[in-house]
């Protein structure tokens, strides 16, 4: 089938998963003992049962669970994520304001990872078992072993505190599209991209090594093609296929990483907001961001599948 039909099929198949995601999100928060109201009541013992019931009504926490879910999901589909319990602000407004910051961080992380990892992976595979390869593999393994929050702290310690090269916090909050912001983006972006870079490099190296043993490589050389063409045209495309399948997992990792890294760098994105909301028990914000998280990962999955089909003609025919 053509690429377009393939894309359409994949997009459609994602919808039930999105629903599943919403169910899990809702279930996590509403099927557990202690909703926000009862917690509030536990802190304020002189709230009357009538008040409690009214509060529940107002916050949409009364009625059977499945009803609550339906109300919530129908609201979500028109973009209404509810209100921040304490201030009454629209959750969607909060989310939309924080979203670009996190996306900027994520994109930087991805770009950084790809730019570093793909050439390094190629280099390691081509020079397999020589010194350059061993060193790269060691560095890559360190990259996935280092806790990202510690990496962030250490980067701040070394580059901001001791070397004074980077500012730690934006003194006054410039708008995101301001070119100066790029400078502020570097340390957190590198922190978040390191683990992804390490994973990609490892997969790239393994994948290329496998491909280099295949017969079509010998055949290409037997045609008299220069080695550079053999590697960069024939082998690379086949190797990238493995990297693409990695994309979804890595996005999940970057999303999770952003939660921690934003806290370390006090970056005003969804991650920092998420932790703050958890601490203050703002259930609507937490649910909204959780839903977004799931959405992002599914989106990444979809893009990965499509890229996969674009790279490998064999896939389109199942």
């Amino acid at each position, binding site marked *: 089938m053509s690429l377009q039909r393939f894309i359409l099929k994949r997009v459609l198949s994602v919808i039930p998963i999105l629903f599943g995601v919403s169910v899990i999100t809702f279930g996590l928060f509403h099927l557990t003992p202690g909703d926000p109201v009862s917690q509030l009541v536990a802190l304020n013992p002189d709230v009357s049962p009538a008040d409690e019931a009214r509060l529940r009504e107002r916050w949409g926490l009364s009625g059977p669970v499945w009803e609550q879910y339906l109300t919530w999901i129908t609201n979500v589909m028109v973009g209404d994520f509810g209100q921040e319990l304490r201030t009454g602000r629209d959750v969607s407004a909060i989310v939309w304001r924080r979203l670009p910051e996190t996306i900027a961080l994520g994109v930087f992380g991805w770009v950084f990872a790809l730019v570093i990892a793909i050439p390094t992976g190629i280099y390691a595979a081509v020079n397999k078992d020589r010194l350059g390869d061993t060193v790269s593999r060691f560095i890559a393994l360190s990259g996935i072993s280092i806790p990202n929050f510690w990496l962030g702290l250490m980067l701040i310690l070394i580059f901001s505190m001791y070397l004074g090269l980077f500012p730690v916090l934006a003194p006054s909050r410039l708008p995101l599209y301001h070119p100066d912001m790029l400078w502020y983006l570097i340390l957190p972006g590198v922190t978040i991209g390191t683990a992804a870079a390490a994973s990609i490099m490892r997969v790239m190296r393994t994948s290329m090594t496998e491909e280099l043993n295949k017969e*079509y490589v*010998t*055949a290409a*050389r*037997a045609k008299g093609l*220069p080695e550079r063409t053999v590697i960069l045209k024939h082998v690379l495309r086949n190797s990238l296929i493995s990297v693409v399948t990695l994309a979804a997992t890595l996005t999940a990792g970057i999303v999770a990483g952003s939660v921690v890294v934003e806290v370390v760098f006090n970056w005003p994105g969804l991650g920092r907001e998420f932790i703050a909301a958890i601490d203050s028990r703002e259930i609507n914000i937490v649910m909204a961001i959780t839903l977004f998280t799931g959405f992002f990962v599914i989106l990444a999955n979809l893009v990965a599948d499509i890229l996969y089909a674009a790279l490998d003609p064999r896939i389109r025919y199942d």
Partner: protein
Amino acid sequence: MAPLLEVRDLTVRFYTQEGVVTAVDNLSYRIESGEKFGVVGESGAGKSVTALSVLRLIDSPGQIESGEILFKGENLLEMSEAEIRSIRGNEIAMIFQDAQTALNPVYTVGGQIAEAIEHHLDHTSEEARARTIQLLDRVGIPEAEERFSDYPHEFSGGMQQRAIIAMALSCDPDLIVADEPTTALDVTIEAQILDELRELADDFDTAIQLITHDLGVIAEVCDRVMVMYAGRPVEKASVEELYYDPKHPYTVGLMSSIPRVGDGRERLQTIPGTMPDLVELPSGCSFHPRCPFAEQQCTRSEPALTDVETGREATMDTEHGAACIEYTEGLSQGLTYSIEVDGPTDGTVEQYVEGDRSE
């Protein structure tokens, strides 16, 4: 006329964890222009290594240790990378055993063939495309123009192999090295492909070094043949001589193991045992543990390829050479096999009997 390809004393070794493997030992042979030369032997005999050596595609842990490969008079082993690359695909081309894996799955078949043409022949991409379509048509792929943009997995096995042949012929090479070109195919397809390969080679005036384990294939296509065992040549002759007058016990064994209808024998005839692992070769003649005619002297020294007429060491010009002590010192009991040929028309039987030879 100077030979097209002359391989002299080629030795290739592989340095593996299990030990040093001498995949090819002091191999010499010659191929004339337009000739079809067969290399036959069981798997592990070193046949594919000879093929890859000609194109200098031996990669670590393998190494071409010594010898010369003269192509049109020039030693391929002394050329620079750039020089050998201009010969690969252009003057010497290779056909691979498994067409499926020899084609890159993510690029179109036509594209992969045109790629070589563009690289070597300085054609524009349109010209290369046109030539490729012509080639595809010539090798028997129907609707060549549409098929140009198809991917390898959209071709059947036989079609893939034809595409590989087209790829080999694309730059009009003087020599094609075909490594088991039909092994992966059905028998019926195999016959077709062999026919066409032979025809194409004749039309394009290309020499073929055909590597196979199948004696039937050799009979179909080749003019001269070399039989390999454990990395060494054990017999070299014209196809006719080899079939009707085999001199080496291994060759005799291979041929007698081909079952014939109406044979009368109760069991399948085989050569007992298996070919030795190249890491640990038997002493003296490598074939002696499996040879019915072997005697004690066979374990002592390794017989070189000997001219069966003169008894002296075989040269490039030798018509028929065999590596058996029988043709130098002679065995005490001789080689006691016999070849019978059923005559074509009147059923008279001509017998060639090798009896005792006292020399």
